[in-house]
Each structure stands twice: as structure tokens, then as C-alpha cells.
């Protein structure tokens, strides 16, 4: 058997990611996902005044700053039991959605679809069509995506003054109320994005697209001209021609914290969500309520000071310890839920929330790379719907409060957590305040779940599992790996807990 070891550095992902593969006769036998850069935000927070969390943690990421801000403020409100008025939650949701829409469009059409223009596919009948649509800077959809997505985050700028790295959420609400001018401006942005999405991305009005509820209905639709020639239609036809719907299932288990807090629930920990969350057990095919106490992180194969087993974020630690000549291989920890390896992201979010189309496709074909990307594009329609709903509710309640000032006596010591659905999946901040300062701060990002290394039991993480069995035709141009990893929408920026040593990463098998 010919064994080849391959280290792949991926571009068109956020942050610093390497994949180490062992190929046997051209098929992936083992995979290790390697976070090559450590950032130490958790250390940065220790000893600081608690409100610093809403200023510093949005800087974890230039793409999901709103998600981190929302998570941080929910964690503080949890410790302090601070009530949050409905309008504040509506504004928070609206801004998080705007960030999500931009990410989902850019990730799909600037990162994922360019892979179909790889010269290896030159002889395919569909190649020319894909190039015309998706080639970087030249393809029509690529160019339109650049201009269409520039405006979406203006919604965040209306309420936060800037994007990225805004800090307009604070315990008790948000800094800026809705007014007619802002609402009209936000509606204009949404209208423009929605029109483009309907015409170019799905080829149908939003309502018709959302009304599709079964795999059969979708595949029939895929044959009809408006959708077949839309960006999603092209993506689906070609991805499925390349059999991406048969590959890369990864772990069958999924988690979602539930998207978008329900504005009617004013009290922490805001378990009521507009899209319900939960744990999907891939073996029993059932969704169970999520219990965050069942979350723990392992460091057995990671470059951190060792401890046994997994630890919940409140009892965990993040002490970097680079050990290059060992079987530890990454700056990412291994989060687990009830000892299960789980995945998170738009597929998990929609399946657990009960989107009928996604459930039907998942039942028919299982989890796979195409379905993950498809779910991302599907989610945009749901995001647009809820953004509009938030604006409608803000309009109806335009003079209601956007901020309830917490009293000083409420700002006590204690533990809290904030759980949100970021663009890439389940994001959580856990903190403990003692003597008025942050004693502990732990962040578990969606990519931490997905890009997880092996745990104390040696079980590989979701991406690692998703790559085993994939045939790589040309190890100098592993395009198959590119398709799969980009379908995961990886972001190592906030996930890896350092110092770029300039060394080549090695591991002992």
C-alpha cells in the first residue's frame, strides 16, 4: 500500500488552518485538523473589569464580531440577572442577522464556488457555465456578490456606528434606539439584498422558495429553468455531479443553541429562541433539549497544559504548551457534548429548528458536503424573513425602551454564559466574576466544535471524520479536500487559542 502524507494549507478560509492527511492508495485514511495560530483571548480577559468583555471579545473576529458581542453581553446579563427590553433584543437580532447574511453570501460565492473553476474540470460540460458565474472577479455571481454584500452590514452601522468590531450591546440593552430613519434605511438594504437573492441566487420569490418542504419537490424544482440557472441551482447541479452529496458526512450528531433570542423573554439566560435549539442525536434521529452542562473540552491532543478527560468551560483552563514532537498537534481544544463528537453550522441549525426541506434532504441522503453548503444558502431566506420581522416589530413598538440601566447593586460576582448561533454555528462565552473582576473567561466557537482534534478517547473531530475515505486524485492539487473543507465554512481566527513559530508542523502517527 502506498502511503503518502500531505500537509495542506488552505486559503479562502478565515484564519490559519492546515490539514494533515495520510493517504493510502490515494484515499484518506487519517486526517488531522491543525490550528496553526494561537490568540489567547481567554488569557486577555482574566483580571479585567467585566464590561471589558463587550469591548474586547468582538475583536476576536472581523467576520463574527456581532456574534461575540451578543454572546458576551448575554453572559454578563446572565450573571447579573439583568432584564433586557424587547426592542433591544430585536435590534441585537437584526444586527446579528445582517452579519450572518453577509457571511453566508460571501462564503458561498467568494470562497466555495470558485473551486468549481479549477482547471481540472476544464473538460466537463458544465465548466464554462461555472466559470461565467463563479470565476473570481470575472464571474457574474462573484462580482455581484462583492457589491451586494457591501451594503448588508450598513444595518449594523446604523445601530453600532461601525462594522466590524462594534460594541453597541451592553448589559440592559443597546446604545441606539430604532427610529423611522434607521428603520427605513435598513428596510432599503434588505429589499435590495432580497431582490438580488430572489432573482439571481434562487430564481424564485422568497415565499415560493420557503414553501418547498420535501427533497422530491426540490429535485423537481432543480430541473426547471429559473432555479436550474440560478446560482444555487448551478451550485447544486455541479456539486451533485461531482458526488459531493455522497461525501463527507462527518459525525451524525449535531448541536444548535437556537437562533435569535425571543424578544418577549426579557430575563437571562434567554432560552426562548425564534428558531429552537437542541441536540440532535444522529443515531436515534431525535432532537433533545440542549443542556450546556454537558459541554466539555479535552486537551489530550492539543498544545495546552494537560488535564484528564474533558472539562466544562467553568472548570477548564487554557494554558498554552507547545509540544511539537508528540502526538499533540493543534492549538484548538476538543469540545464534546455528552462525550459525543458533534457538528454545528447552518445544517445543524436548520435541522434542529425543523426546516422541513432540510429534514427531508437529510433523511433521504444523510449529512454531506453539498447539503451543508445548500443549508447555508437556504438559511439566507430564513435570515431575510426574520430580519424583516424584527424591523416590523420595531416599527410597531418604535417608542418602547431600548435600554434598562442595571443598578450597581445588581453587578455581583457569579457565573454566567451566553449562547448564540453565529454564522458558523454554536458560539458560547462562559465567565466567572469574583471580587468584581473576571476570574475566568472561556470561549467555545463553532469552529472549535467542527475542527476539533481527537479527544481523550482518541475519537477524531467532525472534520477529521468527514475526510476519512475521500479519494484524492492528485495530491499536488487536492481539490476534493478543498470542496469539503470549504463546505464546512471554517474559521480558525477565533478558534485557536499564539505564537506563529515559523516551524513546520509535524506529528508522530
Amino acid at each position, binding site marked *: 500500500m502506498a502511503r503518502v502524507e500531505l500537509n495542506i494549507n488552505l*486559503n*479562502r478560509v478565515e484564519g*490559519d488552518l492546515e490539514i494533515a492527511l495520510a493517504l493510502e492508495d490515494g484515499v484518506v485514511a487519517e486526517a488531522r485538523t491543525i490550528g496553526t495560530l494561537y490568540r489567547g483571548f481567554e488569557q486577555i480577559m482574566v483580571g479585567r473589569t467585566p464590561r471589558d468583555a463587550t469591548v474586547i471579545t468582538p475583536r476576536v473576529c472581523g467576520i463574527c464580531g456581532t456574534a461575540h458581542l451578543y454572546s458576551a453581553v448575554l453572559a454578563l446579563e446572565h450573571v447579573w440577572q439583568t432584564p433586557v427590553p424587547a426592542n433591544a433584543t430585536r435590534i441585537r437580532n437584526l444586527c446579528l442577522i445582517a452579519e450572518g447574511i453577509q457571511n453566508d453570501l460571501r462564503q458561498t460565492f467568494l470562497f466555495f464556488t470558485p473551486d468549481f473553476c479549477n482547471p481540472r474540470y476544464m473538460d466537463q460540460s458544465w465548466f464554462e457555465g461555472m466559470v461565467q458565474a463563479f470565476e473570481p*472577479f470575472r464571474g457574474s455571481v462573484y462580482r455581484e456578490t*462583492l457589491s451586494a*454584500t457591501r451594503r448588508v452590514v450598513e444595518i449594523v452601522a446604523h445601530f453600532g456606528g461601525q462594522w466590524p468590531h462594534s460594541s453597541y450591546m451592553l448589559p440592559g440593552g443597546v446604545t441606539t434606539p430604532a427610529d423611522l430613519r434607521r428603520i427605513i434605511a435598513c428596510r432599503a438594504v434588505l429589499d435590495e439584498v432580497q431582490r438580488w437573492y430572489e432573482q439571481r441566487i434562487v430564481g424564485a420569490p422568497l415565499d415560493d422558495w420557503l414553501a418547498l418542504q420535501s427533497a422530491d419537490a426540490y429535485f423537481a424544482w432543480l430541473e426547471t429553468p429559473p432555479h436550474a440557472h440560478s446560482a444555487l441551482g448551478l451550485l447544486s447541479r455541479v456539486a451533485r455531479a461531482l458526488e459531493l452529496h455522497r461525501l463527507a458526512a462527518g459525525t451524525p450528531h449535531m448541536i444548535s443553541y437556537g437562533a435569535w433570542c425571543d424578544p418577549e423573554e426579557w430575563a437571562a439566560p434567554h432560552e426562548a429562541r425564534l428558531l429552537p435549539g437542541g441536540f440532535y442525536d444522529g443515531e436515534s434521529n431525535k432532537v433533545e433539549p440542549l443542556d450546556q452542562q454537558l459541554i466539555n473540552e479535552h486537551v489530550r491532543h492539543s498544545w495546552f497544559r494537560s488535564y484528564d478527560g474533558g472539562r466544562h468551560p467553568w472548570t477548564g483552563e487554557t494554558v498554552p504548551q507547545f509540544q511539537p514532537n508528540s502526538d499533540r498537534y493543534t492549538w484548538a481544544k476538543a469540545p464534546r457534548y455528552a462525550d459525543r463528537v458533534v457538528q454545528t453550522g447552518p445544517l445543524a441549525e436548520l435541522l434542529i429548528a425543523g426546516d422541513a426541506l432540510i429534514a427531508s434532504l437529510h433523511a433521504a441522503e444523510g449529512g454531506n458536503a453539498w447539503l451543508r453548503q445548500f443549508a447555508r444558502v437556504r438559511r439566507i431566506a430564513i435570515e431575510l424573513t426574520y430580519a424583516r420581522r424584527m424591523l416590523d416589530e420595531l416599527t410597531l413598538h418604535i417608542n418602547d425602551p431600548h435600554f434598562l440601566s442595571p443598578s450597581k447593586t445588581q453587578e455581583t460576582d457569579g457565573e454566567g454564559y451566553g449562547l448564540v448561533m453565529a454564522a458558523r454555528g454554536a458560539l458560547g462565552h462562559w465567565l466567572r466574576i469574583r471580587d468584581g473582576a473576571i476570574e475566568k473567561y472561556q470561549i467555545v466557537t463553532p469552529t472549535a466544535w467542527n475542527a476539533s482534534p481527537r479527544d481523550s478517547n482518541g475519537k477524531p473531530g467532525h472534520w477529521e471524520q468527514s475526510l476519512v475515505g475521500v479519494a484524492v486524485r492528485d495530491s499536488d492539487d487536492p481539490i476534493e479536500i478543498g470542496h469539503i473543507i470549504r463546505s464546512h465554512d471554517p474559521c480558525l481566527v477565533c478558534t485557536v487559542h499564539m505564537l*506563529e513559530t515559523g516551524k513546520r508542523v509535524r506529528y508522530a502517527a
Partner: protein
Amino acid sequence: MRHIICFGNPLHGDDGFGPAVYQRLALLPLPEDLRLVEAGTPGLAALALFEGCDDVIIVDALMPGGVPGQLTRPPLETVEAETSLPGHGVGVGYLLQALAIQPKSLPRIQIIAVETSAVALFRPGLSEPVARAVEEAVSLLSKYFQLNSHD
């Protein structure tokens, strides 16, 4: 309206050229028709900095090559796509390509760049030749800070 946009990451050796020029220019009084920005490494969000102006001057360090410390004004077309350091792959070259394809009319764009000798990741501080080039760039650009400029 003119925008001077300084790109670069001061943590990575000579990539800190842009921020160093910014620090010096920021000490000068700012005329009404001039906006000075330290953009850092902003990715696509930087596209917004090219709006609302007629002229843009980009200040940045080039990837290693040429004569270290030499200032140059590369034509836009020669700036390659993937010119950013480890990070997100959206450098100035990518931004220029993204700008080139947008339907709106663009400001005039010029680049003042310094040639560098090596990439020094996570080692803040400029090499001597590039530090000297900061002075030269500041001299060149200070004419835009004349309060009675008619440009």
C-alpha cells in the same frame, strides 16, 4: 476629497511601514479636504474607504523583493492578488481587483509602497532601510497637509 489610507500590520516587521507613516502624518493638522486612515488589515471592509472621495493614496509595504527601503509607485495592475501576510488572504491586491469591477466610478488611486527584504512575523519594529523610507514617505505626503493647498 482625498483619502490617504495606510495599510499594514505593525506586529510583522516591515509590514508596519504603513502604520508608521500614519503615526507621523497623524501629528500634522488635517485640512478639511483630507482624510487620513490607518486601515490595518481590514479585508473587504476597506472597500468603504474608497467611497466619497476623488483621490486615494494607498501607503503599504510590498512583499520581499527589490531594494529594501526603496520607495516606489507601482501601477495598480502590477499589484498581485494574494499579497497579504498570513491572515485572511484579502490584501490590497484583492481590494484593487474588487474595486476595478464595481460599476460606480472610482477615485484616482495611487500607491506609495516600500520594498522590503523579508517577512518577519510577530517581530514588531522596522528594519533600518524601511524606517528611513518612512521619513521619505512623510516628506512626500506632507504637501497634502498644507492648509492652503489647491490640489
